[in-house]
Each structure stands twice: as structure tokens, then as C-alpha cells.
């Protein structure tokens, strides 16, 4: 037992030295936790930001100009005035996502109580922006007209009012979400790549044979790679969380970072085991890369870090329950956004640990035979 732990420890120190000697992989780690996270956080992809809008103003009245002027940055760009004939081609080319059409005599009809129609043309192929933006447009036009009318009348208070408040992210800022999700995506990616590469590298250099001939068990070799690579990623996550997310992106973190990091370590145990598993299948680094794309990309895309798991078809959501990345995203959101504690997230922790152990067992079964055969 002590012998085994000592072996795992010493082999692991060697892993760390090897990893820091590999410029490509270290570059990848740095990129993943800086540029990738920041660009994702600053993408504004989750909110309405600088939506392009044009107005066909056939009324040219005070009210119509007021409506146009009410579409403001940062949600919208300043509306551009276009003619009716230009609507089709400009929307076809994607130049404008929204086009308002204010009919002639609009102001007169409003004041006369004839309830005229304003048309909002939305390019429904710009999914997120179209969905959120159309709600904003509705709100802006209704409010602006109500204010205009109210100058002459006593405003009417609705009998029932809805007050909505957003918990955890009151201003609905994309960076709060994407910053942390970016880290999570990088964790999955790097864990698989680093562990897989650690194995393939030893095989390409012929050092794996050397290890297997020594009095070491595959379990010890596998565990040394798991702890060393997991340690590097866990440290990188902590640094990224504090430096990139909290300091650079100015995202407040509500929850317990230590709890999140413990969960990350648990998850890394699984993800590095997957990397080792792929490493036993791949015969070369390029093959590992291709396998990685086919395994890690779905794990990341479908984990709930991109779009909600609820939106997936039931069969797919059920399959994804078998992927720890889903549980990882779920507990990360609970801990970091909603401030949940271990009492809330323990089932996800358990799921990650259970699946991780299963994958590790599978990897160990393949390990010796696969490595020896591939080296021949």
C-alpha cells in the first residue's frame, strides 16, 4: 500500500515535469483559461446587445420619431431610416435583424383612439436576438405610445401588476454566465487532452514499455497520470476563477469557491480517466485529437453549458444524464450562481464520482493489453 502510494507519487512528479516540458500543451492550457474564457464571456451572446434595427417611417410625426429614438444602445444600435422597398433585400442579406414599419397617419390614429398597428419585422433566423429583442421592441413601443397619450390623459394604473426580479444575476449579464461556463468547457477539454496526451506521449517515446516492465501496476501508472494532470488543471481553474473571471471580467461569485473546486477535482478524476481511455485507443497524437473532437465536443455542447438541458429531446437529455459533464455544469451553476451548499449538490457529486469510478475501471481493464499491442 505504502509502496504503491510512493510509486504513484514519484511517477506523478515525472508527469508534471513532462507536462511542463511540452510547449504546445502548456500553450493550450494558457489559451483555454484566458483567451477562450474571455472571448466567450464578452460575446454578449446571451443578451440583446447592439441589435441592428431599421425604421420605415411612413408617418414622420412626432410620435413616430419618438418611437424610433427610444431604441437605444446598448440593446439596439441607432435605428437607420429606410424605405419600404429596401426592407426585403436588407433583411434578406441580414443587414438588419429588426425593421419597424410605422404606417401613415399613425399619430393621428393613436390620438383618435383608432388603435393603429405598428409592424415589427424580425429576422427569426437570428434566434436568441430575435427572441429577446421582439419582447423588448414590444415593451418599448407600448411604453412610448402610452407616455405620448398620457400627456393628454390621466394614466390608468393596471388593476394587477407583475413585478419580475431576476435572482443571482440581476442585470442578466452574459459574462457572469459565459465566464464560468467557459472555464468548465476548458476543464473537460484539457482533462481529456492532457491525460490522453500523457499516455500517447509515453507510447510514442517508448517509455511506456519501460514502465510496464518495471514492478509497477497499470493502476499506479494510471493514477499517477490522473493526479498530476488533475492537479495542474485544478490549479489553473482556481487561478482562472479568481484572476480572469473575478478580477479581469469583474464577475462577482456568490457561492463557495472551495466547494466548487472540490467538485472540480471530483470531475477531473472522471475526465482524466476518459482521456486515458481514449489514449489506450488512439495510436498516435493526431488520432487522439480526432477522437477527442468526437467525444469531448458533444460532452461540452450538450452539458447544459450552451443551451438548457430542458430544451433537448427527452431521449437525448436522458442519455446525457450518463455524462458527468451534465452534472458538473449543474452543480457549478448551483454553487457559483445560486450559492448552493453541499446539502443541495451532493447528488451530483455522487453521480460524478460513480461514473468516474466506472470509467477508470474500464480504462484499467484496457490498459495493459492495449498498450502492449499498440507498441508492437
Amino acid at each position: 500500500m505504502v509502496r504503491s502510494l510512493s510509486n504513484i507519487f514519484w511517477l506523478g512528479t515525472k508527469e508534471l515535469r513532462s507536462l511542463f516540458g511540452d510547449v504546445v500543451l502548456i500553450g493550450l492550457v494558457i489559451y483555454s483559461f484566458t483567451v477562450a474564457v474571455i472571448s466567450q464571456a464578452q460575446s454578449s451572446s446571451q443578451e440583446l446587445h447592439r441589435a441592428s434595427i431599421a425604421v420605415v417611417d411612413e408617418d414622420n410625426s412626432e410620435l413616430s420619431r419618438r418611437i424610433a429614438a427610444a431604441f437605444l444602445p446598448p440593446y439596439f444600435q441607432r435605428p437607420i431610416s429606410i424605405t419600404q422597398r429596401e426592407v426585403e433585400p436588407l433583411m434578406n442579406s441580414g443587414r438588419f435583424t429588426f425593421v419597424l414599419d410605422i404606417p401613415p397617419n399613425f399619430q393621428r390614429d393613436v390620438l383618435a383612439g383608432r388603435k393603429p398597428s405598428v409592424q415589427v419585422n424580425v429576422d427569426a433566423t437570428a434566434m436568441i436576438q430575435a427572441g429577446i429583442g421582439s419582447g423588448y421592441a414590444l415593451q418599448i413601443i407600448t411604453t412610448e405610445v402610452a407616455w405620448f397619450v398620457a400627456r393628454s390623459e390621466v394614466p390608468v394604473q393596471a388593476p394587477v401588476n407583475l413585478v419580475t426580479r431576476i435572482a443571482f444575476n440581476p442585470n442578466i449579464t452574459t459574462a457572469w454566465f459565459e465566464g464560468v461556463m467557459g472555464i468548465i468547457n476548458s476543464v473537460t477539454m484539457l482533462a481529456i487532452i492532457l491525460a490522453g496526451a500523457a499516455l500517447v506521449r509515453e507510447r510514442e517515446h517508448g517509455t511506456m514499455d519501460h514502465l510496464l516492465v518495471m514492478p509497477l501496476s497499470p493502476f499506479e501508472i494510471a493514477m499517477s497520470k490522473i493526479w498530476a494532470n488533475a492537479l495542474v488543471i485544478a490549479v489553473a481553474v482556481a487561478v482562472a476563477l479568481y484572476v480572469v473571471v473575478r478580477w479581469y471580467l469583474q464577475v462577482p461569485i456568490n457561492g463557495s469557491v472551495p466547494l466548487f473546486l472540490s467538485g472540480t477535482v471530483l470531475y477531473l478524476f472522471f475526465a482524466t480517466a476518459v482521456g486515458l481511455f481514449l489514449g489506450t485507443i488512439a495510436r498516435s497524437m493526431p488520432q487522439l485529437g480526432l477522437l477527442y473532437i468526437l467525444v469531448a465536443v458533444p460532452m461540452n455542447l450538450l452539458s447544459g453549458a450552451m443551451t438548457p438541458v430542458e430544451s433537448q429531446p427527452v431521449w437525448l437529455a436522458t442519455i446525457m444524464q450518463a455524462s458527468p459533464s451534465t452534472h458538473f455544469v449543474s452543480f457549478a451553476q448551483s454553487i457559483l450562481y445560486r450559492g448552493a451548499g453541499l446539502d443541495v449538490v451532493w447528488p451530483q457529486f455522487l453521480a460524478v464520482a460513480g461514473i468516474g469510478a466506472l470509467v477508470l475501471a474500464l480504462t484499467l481493464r484496457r490498459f495493459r493489453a492495449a498498450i502492449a499491442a499498440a507498441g508492437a
Partner: protein
Amino acid sequence: MTSGESPVAVVREVSQRYRDVVALDNVSIAIPAGYVVGLIGPDGVGKSSLLSILAGARAIQSGQAVVLGADMADRRAREQVCPRIAYMPQGLGKNLYPDLSVRENIAFFARLFGQTRAERDWRIAELMEATALSDFADRPAKKLSGGMKQKLGLCCSLIHDPDFLILDEPTTGVDPLSRRQFWDLIDRLRARSATGMSVIVATAYMEEAERFDWLIAMNEGRILATGTPAELKAQTGGGSIEAAFVALLPQRPDGRSADMPEKSELDGSQETVIVARDLTCRFADFTAVDGVNFQIRKGEIFGFVGSNGCGKTTTMKMLTGLLPPSAGEALIFGRSMEAGNHESRSRVGYMSQAFSLYGELTVRQNLVLHARLFHLPSAEAERRIAELIDRCDLTEHIDGLAADLPLGIRQRLSLAVAIVHKPDLLILDEPTSGVDPVARNQFWRLLIELSRQDAMTIFVSTHFMNEAARCDRLSLMHEGRVLATDTPDGLIRAKGVQTLEQAFIAFLEQDAGVADPPVTLTQAKADPDPIDRPRDGQRRSAFSLRRLLAYTIREGLELVRDPIRLMFALFGTAFLMIVIGFGISTDVNNLTFAALDRDQSPESRAYLAELRGSRYFVEKPPLADYAELERRMKSGDIKASIEIPPDFGADIKRGRPAFVSAWIDGAMPFRAETIRGYLEGTHQLYLSDPAVKTTQPQAASPVNVEIRFKYNQAFDSIYAMAPSTIALLLALFPAILMALAVVREKELGSITNLYVTPVTRLEFLLGKQLPYVAVALVNFAVMYVMAIVLFRVPLKGAFLPLLVGTFVYVFTTTGFGMLISTFCRTQIAALFGTAILTVLPATQFSGMLVPVSSLSGVARVIGMGFPMTYYRPITVGTFTKGLGFADVGADILVLLVFIPVLTGLSLLMLPKQER
């Protein structure tokens, strides 16, 4: 013969350095024409650098090289003379393509030299006949034996009748019989050539050097001596070329002799350490080791001798338990070395063929690591390490990185590491390949010491005959079988010859039944040309479709024969299309909410009923108090909660404004926005519901806002997602495959063919691009069908503009991969470089998530410079917006501009010579 005339090549003061390493140090030499010139010296002394400069494969850093009258630094002159030179780089079959057959390999080179079909056919037939490869014309190169690979390499080099043949270690690792046949073949080919072809050969086998006309001895980037073999031997007083070479080396500072160490007689121990009984190893389609038997006695040095690929390594792997035998058994210390047998394994030291140390660790760290892993107590470990450092002469390198050590010292370190735990048995797989004779002798001195002083049993494999002669006993191996086992003297006596090499050849000939049938080259030559044999290949042109297609055909064949890459290329996109198509959706539904109804009045129930009727919401059990609300929001059980205050019903009845408050989970911003929109919509519905009894008159909104979702009335995200996904995946996969294809050639070394044949960079790049354009179009077809059948996204617009746009687009995406490949050195860097440089702009800056019209700053610039920005409007436009040429024509034109730009940049970045 033109010997004695003007030299075939002249090198003046050429120096070449790579970072800190000086490969050539002010070398000047004139190489006589019409001779077979041998370039001798150990690995890493600059032989390959010199030859690649002569071949024009490597750019000259300083000095001048004139080959066949052309200055190799001048691009035009080099291009003129290139077709008269043939170059076979080091590494068996390095410029060959393992997945291609013998005929396909030769045909590829013939096309590179622009030969027409007619010319190609007769030349290939003639060469295959001359080299006795005709019977194996359709066998893939990777399945050829070492000797056959070598002949194939020669065929490929000679396809264009060169005047100057440059061979870099053509026979390393090949069995002695094949080696002898190879040199005979070269002699015959020279005899047949009308112009008296000049040949320069680098070799690590000193024995071979005896047969060359003229020799150049090199060491550490300098030329030690030149002359005929007889002259060299006379000059140094050495009895052999090897002895002459050793004598030429500068005196070693440590004063150790470089002579062959003598070994004492072996004690007659009869205890056996290794027993192999009918040991057999079969792989899928061939038998690597076929019924091998031998016994190794305690304390002896037992040698395994044979060519590369004859089964030496596989046998050793079975002995060490790395490979399970298919049949038979291998016993070490009377036990099998299966997994888990730690006790036996701690008595074995193993040095594998590949350098088995950690290059990123220092000498001391390597030793300490292994001492730890064998659990030597730290005091003993220190003593042992100090002893080994002294014994293996590593003192001055103790803190150097293992990767930076010269090869000879690395081998000694490997040995030290393998014996750190004082094993009883030492297994060494080709420990000295590539080491110079002096270092090799030093290494053997250590081995003999270990055997005789420490009573270590040593099992060593080699393909050097002079090493084999130092073993106590040895087995001669060929094609997975042991031909004979005996003492070196015993083997020589059995065949009644002079040397071990001759004995081995005799055993090989006996094994083959008869010696190879004499090759009938002269016949081929005597054949009068019945038809005028076309010789178009010599014509030079700036651009040749034939050369371009040579690469296209070859790349296509390789792709078809690499199942993993092919599967990835064809089905990778389909797989990810399914994942993204089903998994990524911006339609938010099945939203969970729970109510905290503190009023419990008919009015509050009426309000909640409105929510329950919505198709977006799913109600969870009601909340009892605020603490529960908080807890369930935190756990993610509910995404929204509705709180109705106690006086809700009463307020409505009395005509006072009533309030409902909603908490929305903001963890995912876009979902929160959507929930807020839905709640407000539902609230408006409630207000206008005539069933809602309020005392106040309903205030009608003075305006009617009509939201028209154009192109996608149902507002179902798949209609935008499916066409966008096609654009995304066609950006990613073709670029990755293309980048890998180019960098693969760099990594495997076949890029040399670009350097030394008349093929231009443009032909090379376009030729390699075409197959991937074809693959991308197949991908497109598959995804197109999936979009329509699986995701039920109809094509509303015209098909032709989509097809034309796609065709242009995949040229740009493969071009993008091509550009990235020009600055990547390894395949893994190419793969990640392409993936990162594609995925980021494709998902963030090309309209996939945020419309390009909303981008600003750097993001917009990146977006405008990325082809997908112009292709996504074409797919989404034709599929979902129902557009035609008139609308997407401009985008297609912009895409067209990308093609020459990307190709031009790639051309600029791709050197035509190695630096």
C-alpha cells in the same frame, strides 16, 4: 565512365547550424564524378546535412554548393538541375508512402517528373523487372521487408534517369544478404547507365565502405580524410575501414582506448535464466515470431541478430511480458512474466529500442526516479547512483537534460537506469544503433564488465555483425524464425567462411532455398527500342496538371486506405450534425415554476390558472414559505417562482392596484430573459381575459404591435440551426483534414519530395487540396440530406446557388487549413491550431449566435475576415429565407476572393527548401 573528369559536385566553405548544434563546420570538398563515393561516420556528424544540401532539399546557410554545374543557392539553377539528381533520404522508405502499393509509389514519382502514361508504363515495368519487384507490384509498401523497401526507394529515385544519385544510409537495419544484393544492383544500374551515373552514399556500416571507389570520412561536422579505401587504410595503418576511422578520430581526452574490449572466458554455469519454447506471436495478418526456441544460461551475453522487422523486438516484448505470446511459452527465472509478477520483474532490467528515458528530466532526476520506483532505501540509492555515475562516466552531464545529451551518452544513461536496482538479467533491444564506433566500444566494455564482474545475464539484440561477434552465443533471426544458434566461432565454422557476416549470408541463402535468381538487367538494356520510347518527362513547365494530379491521386489513395481518418472525414460531420441539431436549441420550454400563494383566494387561483395553461411552463409542487422558495431555486428544481401576497384578492375587489412578484433564476441569462418575456406575455393575457373580474374598466392599449417573425413563423430554432451547423462543420472538418495532410508530410519526412522534385509549391498545395474538397462536398451532401429528412428543414430557396456557394466555400475552408499548416510543425499542433483558430471565429464572430451586424471592434474585423461570415447567409438564406442567386451572389463573390488570398499566403509561407 567519366571518372577523373570535372567533379560532379563541389562544396566550398559550407557551414550549417541548427540552434546550438553545428552540423557542418566550414566544409569544402570536390566529389569526383563517375564514382561511387562513400560518406562514412557515426550518426549526427553532418552526413545527412551535407547530402540534403547536395540534393537541394536544404537551404544553404553559408558557403556555396555547385552540383552538376548549378549553384544550389540559386532557385532557377536548382530547378534546372533538379531533374538530373535523385535523392533517397535517410530512414528506410521515408520518402515512400506506406499505404500505397509498389506500383503506385513509383507511378507517383513518375508523375512528379511529368512523365506521360506511355513513358511511365515502360519505365516502371523496366525498373520493377530490374529490381525483381514485379511480383510484388500490388503489395503496399508498409508490408514490404526492409530489403524490398530499399529497392522500392531506389526505383522511385531512378524513375527519371538521374545523373547523380544521392543515397542517405540506404541499408541501415537491413539484413546482410539484402544489403549485398542492393550494392550489386547499384553496380549493375551504373553499368547500364550510358552517362556513368555518379553516386554518393552515406553509411553507418564500416564494412560496406570497403567496396566503394572513394571515401569521405566525417566527424563532428568536419571532414577527417578523403581517398580510396586502400589509401585511408594505408594512411592510418588500420587493418579495416573501422580501425582506420577510429584512428582518424581526434585523441580522446580521457585517454580511454577505443579498441574492442577483450572478454574473459565464461564460467561454465549451466543454470538457465531464460527459456523460450515454440514462442509464437501472430498479429492480424502476419506472424511476427514463428516458433522460436532458445535457452540463455546464467551470466552469458546472448545476442539476437537480424534485420529490422525480423521479430527481435517482438520476441523481447514477449519475454518481458509486454506482449502475450500467441503460442508457446517464455520463462524467466522459471516463471512466466505475466502481469502482476512483480517479484520477477524487479530482477529484470530492460532497455527498449526507442530511447526509454525521460528527456525532460536531468540525468540525476532520471536515476533518482528509477531508484524510487524500485524502492531502494535512500542511503543505498545515493550510493548506487554515485557508483553508476562514475561507472558509466556521466559525471560531467549530471545536471544536463537527458534530451540534450549526445546519443552515445544517452545510451550509457539508459543502461545506468536499467541497472539501478542491480537486476540479475538485463534485456537490451538494439542499444547501440546510431552510436559511433568509439562510443559503441565503450558501451560494450560496460556490458562485458557487468557480465563478468557482476554476473549479470545479458540478452542483447543488434543488427551490427561486429557487435554480434562479441556475444558468448547468438541466434541468427530472419522473418520471425531463428536460423541458427551457436557461438560466433561455431556459426562461422558451420558454414566454413571467414566472417560472421558471411556466415549469416550463407544461412540466409540456405533458408531461401536458392540464391535469388540473377537479375536480368542486361536483357532489358539490350532490348532494341521497338517503339520510340517517349521521354516527355524532361520537359520543364511552370505549371503541370500532371504533377498536381500526382499529389491528388496519392492523397486520395492514402485517405481511402486510412480507415480512421476516412471514417472521421465522412461521418464526423454527420455525427456532430446530429449532436448539434438535436442538442442545441434556443427554444426554451418545459420551464419549471412553483407558486407561493399566500392569498389562496379565487382571484389568486385565477391568476395562477393562466400560467398553468401556458405551454411553456410546467408546474412543480407549491411552495410553503420563502425559505423553501430560496432552497428550491438554489437547487435548480424550479426556474421561476410566483409569489402572490395575502391581500391580492381583497385588493382587486376593492379596486386597489394588486401586485404579483416573480423571481426568475438568472443563472443562464438568455433563459432568464425568455422566462421574463413569457411571464409578461402571460400576464397580459390574464389582464385581457374577460373572465378576470376587476372593478375597474380595462384600459385598452392605444397601439397594436404586430411582431412578424420573418422566414421562420414558428420561431423554431432548428430552421436557423441546421443550415448554420452545415456552415460550421464545413469550416471545421475540411480545414483540420487539410492541415493534417500537409503537416503529416512534414512530420513523416515525405515533404522532401516537394523539395527535390520538379513539383512546384502551387501544384503541391492544390493537388493535396482537391481530395479534401471532394470529401467536403460529400460531407455537404450527407448533411444536406440530414437537414431535409432528419430535421425536416426544407430548402425553400434555390439549390444551385447553395451548391455553387458550398463549392467555393470548401475551397476557402481547406485553404484556411492549408494556411495554418504552413506554420505548424507537428500534427497535434496543426490539429489544435486549426480547431482553435476555426471554432472561435466560427461560433463567436460569424453570425452563429450573434448576428454579424451586431458585432463591433476586433470581433467585427475577425468576423469580416472569416469565410463562414459569407457562407452562413448562403445556407440560411437558401434554406430558410428562400433566397436565390440575386440575394446571395454577392456573398459568393466575396468567398471567391478568399481563394487566391489564402492560396497566395500559403505559398509565401511554405518554403521550397528545408531550412
